[in-house]
């Protein structure tokens, strides 16, 4: 394995995903062909119009879906229809378990794989402290806000110490201010864990603030139109939204995506001019 190969943490090569049509309807070409190489420890964001296959891309990379064509690898091993050890996923929907306390939610995955009780306690207490949930350890998700529930889900992923974290619009349901603050927390998490992160988002500002590189996707079938390198230092937070470079990045992303967004709305003839 070359030094370059070691630097590539996960990759998609010629990945296409076509959903078979339901009775009487044609197949839906959702994604690809897509080529992407995620470098070890980088923060990569994917933006694109609604329905362009962003979540499909994430699920294929996670191993939750099989690609119709192409290959997916994680740490040099092929990913095919099973989630590999070392991959953590946080979904847009509230995936906290309402029947468990915050602490038990976070401990769920560790208990499943039979980690010793003392180690579970250490990791869960640490993750909850990191996510600011220590005071709510005995609360149930129903007693928390949407943002806090999402932090519970992140804690549940964090305790498993994943090396690749996939975030599928995790802040999509939150208000703009909370999203910025959650972004800061994700950046802290990224720096501390050293994990590679792939973030799916529809918010250009979120992608511009968080990522090292941003992939702008076309309307369905989703392909990368542009890869924008942000050039931010690793030590950054939501204050960068006021920097001039931030506006340049979001402007470039919007230039990439405006036409595609119109296409996905089906209004090309009306609005394109």
């Amino acid at each position, binding site marked *: 394995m070359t030094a370059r190969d070691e630097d590539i943490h996960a990759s998609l090569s010629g990945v296409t995903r076509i959903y078979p049509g339901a009775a009487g309807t044609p197949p839906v070409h959702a994604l690809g062909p897509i080529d992407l190489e995620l470098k070890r420890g980088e923060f990569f964001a994917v933006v694109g119009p609604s329905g362009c296959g962003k979540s499909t891309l994430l*699920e294929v990379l996670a191993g*939750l879906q099989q690609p119709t064509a192409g290959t997916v690898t994680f740490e040099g091993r092929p990913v095919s229809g099973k*989630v590999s*050890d070392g*991959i953590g996923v946080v979904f847009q929907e509230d995936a906290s378990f309402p*029947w468990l306390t915050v602490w038990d939610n976070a401990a*769920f995955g560790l208990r499943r794989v039979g980690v010793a009780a003392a180690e579970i306690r250490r990791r869960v207490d640490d993750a909850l402290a990191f996510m600011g949930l220590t005071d709510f350890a005995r609360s149930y998700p*129903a007693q928390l806000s949407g943002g806090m529930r999402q932090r519970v889900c992140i804690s549940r992923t964090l305790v498993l110490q994943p090396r690749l974290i996939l975030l599928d619009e995790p802040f999509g349901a939150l208000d703009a201010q909370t999203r910025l603050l959650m972004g800061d927390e994700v950046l802290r998490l990224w720096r501390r864990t050293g994990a590679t992160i792939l973030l799916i988002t529809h918010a250009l500002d979120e992608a511009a603030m968080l990522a090292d590189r941003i992939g702008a996707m076309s309307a369905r079938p989703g392909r990368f139109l542009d890869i924008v390198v942000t050039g931010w230092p690793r030590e950054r937070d939501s204050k960068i939204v006021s920097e001039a470079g931030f506006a340049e990045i979001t402007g470039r992303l919007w230039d990439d995506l405006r036409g595609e967004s119109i296409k996905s709305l089906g209004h090309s003839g009306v609005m394109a001019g």
Partner: protein
Amino acid sequence: MSRIGWIRIAVLVIAIGLLEFCCRVGLIDHRVVIPPSQMADALIALLISGQANDQIVRTFGIVILAALISVVAGFALGLVIHALPRVRQSLDPFFATYYAVPIFIFYPVLIVIFGLSVVPIVLMGVATAIVAMIIATLNGLDRVPQVLTKVARVHRMGTIATALLLKLPAAAPHLFTGVKLAVSYAFIGVIASEFILAPAGLGRVISDAYSDFNNRQMYALMLLLIIVATAVNMALHVVDQRWAERRGIAKP
């Protein structure tokens, strides 16, 4: 206690008081209905004498057995049917019309097959209760968020672990509604079967007391059944409410 709770108790006290008054002043013939105080008196005497203990144990034992079978088998069948969409599609019309069919018409058939024993009564209890549990299981599983299935796959959980550790607790509020219904229906199925034809049991004793114009015994046992059925249902309701509060589900 909440204001609604007090109103509920007040309505009950007024209704019982009214019945007591009507019986005492002769507005209702005592050969038809005895005053509630006499029903309670007769029940206490019956319980102290131990005269009906065997029947009480037998009937409630059968109810518990029928309810348990209905809940366990109903949940298992619900799981299987939910996993087989085509089977479910073909069965849905039967579930929808099941309680429109007077199930008790099958009781004589069961007696012919199994004899005049406990088995047909248990089966009638199960027959009245199990479909409620199956329907509740299907409803519950339908409402399990899709994202939990993805979470299960991220945690590399197998089918059984996913069903037991995620789907079951996620569907629990609906399953508990099924449990409540199954217990109530099991009561109805068992008592009604004993009432129609059985060698023993509370339903049979009530039926005999009715035939013998033994109003004190008949109403005493009816009161016992009402108290037990209501207490069990209220206990299940309280548990249901506590779970619902914890999970942030508003229940009336």
